[in-house]
C-alpha cells in the first residue's frame, strides 16, 4: 500500500526503471548531439493512393505510341556566393516510340534542339549554330541509357520518354503521400509528394478524365541551398500527327559541326 503514496516520479527505482532512465538519457543525448536516432524512427511508406495515381499517370505516358507536350521550366543554380539564381525556359517535346523524338529548349542560357530518328542523335546549339551527331541505338530506351553512359547527359525530362517509367518511378522512394488539391494552369490537380535518397519531388496530376502531369518540382536536397528544377506542363497531346521528317536533322545554313566528348571510364 505504501507505493500508492508515491508520486509516479518518486517511486523507488527498479532495475527496469533504471534501464528506462538510461535509455531515455542516452536517446536524449543522441538527439542533442545530432546522432541519427531520429532517422531510425522513419519508416519507408508510400500512401497506396499516391502510388496508384502516379502509376496510372505514368502508365499513360509510358504506353503512348506517340505524344507531345510543352513545359515551362525553371532551373535553380546556386552561385559561389550562395545567391540562388533561377533560369527560365520553354521546352517542347515530341515522341514517337520506339525510335523517334525531337525537343527544343529555349532558355536564358541557351537555345538547343535535338533529333533522334532511330539511327542518329543530333544536338544543335541554336545560338551558336553548332551541332554534333552521334550514332545511336535503335530504341529510345536504349539510347537514353547509352547516352548517359557515353555522353554524360540525357535530354531534358528524358525520364518521360521511357517505356517503363511507371515501373521505375518509385525506385528508391522512401515515402510518398497526397498533399492535397491545387490548381495548375486552371486545371484542378492532386498534389503528390515523394522523398528519395538524394531528391524530393512533387507531382501535380490533373483530376477528371485521363490524368496527365501538370507540374513537377524536383528538390536537390543534398546540394547547397537545395536548388529546385520545376516544369509546368501544357498542351499534352497523345494523338499527335508526327511525320518522319520531324525526327531527322537537317543542318541549318552555316552551321558548324563538332563532336561530343565521350566519357572515358
Amino acid at each position, binding site marked *: 500500500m505504501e507505493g500508492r503514496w508515491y508520486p509516479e516520479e518518486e517511486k523507488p527505482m527498479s532495475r527496469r526503471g533504471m534501464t*528506462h532512465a538510461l535509455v531515455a538519457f542516452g536517446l536524449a543525448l543522441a538527439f542533442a548531439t545530432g546522432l541519427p536516432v531520429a532517422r531510425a524512427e522513419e519508416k519507408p511508406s508510400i500512401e497506396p493512393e499516391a502510388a496508384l495515381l502516379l502509376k496510372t499517370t505514368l502508365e499513360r505516358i509510358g504506353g503512348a505510341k506517340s505524344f507531345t507536350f510543352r513545359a515551362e521550366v525553371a532551373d535553380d543554380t546556386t552561385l559561389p556566393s550562395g545567391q540562388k539564381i533561377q533560369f527560365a525556359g520553354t521546352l517542347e517535346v515530341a515522341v514517337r516510340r520506339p525510335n523517334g523524338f525531337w525537343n527544343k529548349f529555349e532558355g536564358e542560357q541557351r537555345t538547343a534542339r535535338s533529333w533522334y530518328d532511330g539511327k542518329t542523335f543530333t544536338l544543335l*546549339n541554336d545560338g551558336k549554330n*553548332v551541332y554534333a551527331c552521334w550514332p545511336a541505338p535503335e530504341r529510345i530506351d536504349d539510347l537514353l541509357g547509352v547516352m548517359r553512359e557515353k555522353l554524360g547527359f540525357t535530354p531534358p525530362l528524358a525520364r518521360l520518354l521511357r517505356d517503363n517509367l511507371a515501373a521505375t518511378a518509385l525506385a528508391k522512394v522512401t515515402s510518398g503521400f497526397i498533399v492535397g488539391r491545387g490548381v495548375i494552369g486552371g486545371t484542378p490537380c492532386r498534389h503528390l509528394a515523394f522523398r528519395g535518397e538524394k531528391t524530393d519531388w512533387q507531382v501535380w496530376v490533373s483530376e477528371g478524365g485521363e490524368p496527365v502531369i501538370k507540374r513537377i518540382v524536383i528538390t536537390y536536397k543534398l546540394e547547397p541551398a537545395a536548388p529546385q528544377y520545376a516544369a509546368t506542363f501544357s498542351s499534352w497531346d497523345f494523338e499527335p500527327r508526327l511525320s518522319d521528317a520531324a525526327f531527322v536533322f537537317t543542318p541549318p545554313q552555316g552551321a558548324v559541326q563538332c563532336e561530343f566528348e565521350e566519357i572515358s571510364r
Partner: protein
Amino acid sequence: MSGTRVLRRSLIAIAGAGLAGLTFLIPGVACAENDSRTTIVETRGKDRTTTVITHDDWDDWDDYNRTILQMQRESISSQEEQAREAGRLRRRDEIEQSQEKSSAEHEAYFDAILEDSQAALKAPQGVYYRKPGYSAAEDPGSGARTVEVGGFTYRYDQGVFWLHQGSSFTVVTAPVGATVDKLPQGVTRIVSGTGPVWYFFGTFFGEKGSAYEVIKPAAGLTVFYLPDGYSQEKVKGVARYRFGDIFFKPIFIQGILAYQVVEP
C-alpha cells in the same frame, strides 16, 4: 522514501544514463554487448526489446533500409517473425537488383540536370569588361596598375589590359607573361593537370607565387564561353575559333557547348 535516498537514486540514475548516452557517442563502448555496430537497449513494454543499430555512414541507403527493418523487429524471439523478415529481405534484394539499372539512370538524370545548369553558366554578367579594340580618352582609372611586358607598358585594371596609344587608351589582348596582383571579379577557375588556371574573357591566368601571370593555355583546357571579338575560321574543313593567339574548337561536353584550346 527519504529525500536523501531519492536524491542518491537520482544521482545513480543520471550517472548511469550518462554512460548509456556515451555509448551512442563511442561505438566501441556501444559494441560491448553485441557486435561492433549494434547496441541493444530495452524499451517500455513487457518482454519487448528494440534493436537500435548505430552506423557511421547514414548516407548508405541500404544500411538505412536494413536499420528500419531492424527497428520494426520487435519481439525478436519469434522464429516466425525472423522467417518472415528473411523472406522480406530476399524479396527486397530481388526488387532492388531488378531496379538497380533504372534507378541509377534515374538518379543520373537528376544529377545531369544539376550539372547542366551549373556548367551552363557562361560569361559572367554584370562584371567589368572591355573587349580588345575598345578606346577611351582617359586612363582606365585610379585602380589601374602599370605592367611592363616585352618592352611595352600596359595599364591593367580588373582583368583588362590597356595600351596608351597617342592621346587615347586602347584595350588589347592580355600579353603573355604579364604579372598582376589580383584576379578580376567574375573569373572562372579551371582545374588542369598542371595546377589551377583562371579564365576571364579569353585571358588565362596561372599562379606565380602570391601573384598571377598571364599564360598561354595548354591544349585541352576547356572553357564555356568565348569573349566578344573572337573570329571563326576553317582549317582543313574543321571549324575553330580564334581569340588573340589562342585557338579553340567547339565541343559538346555533357550536352553543353564548350570550347577546347587547340594547338594553332
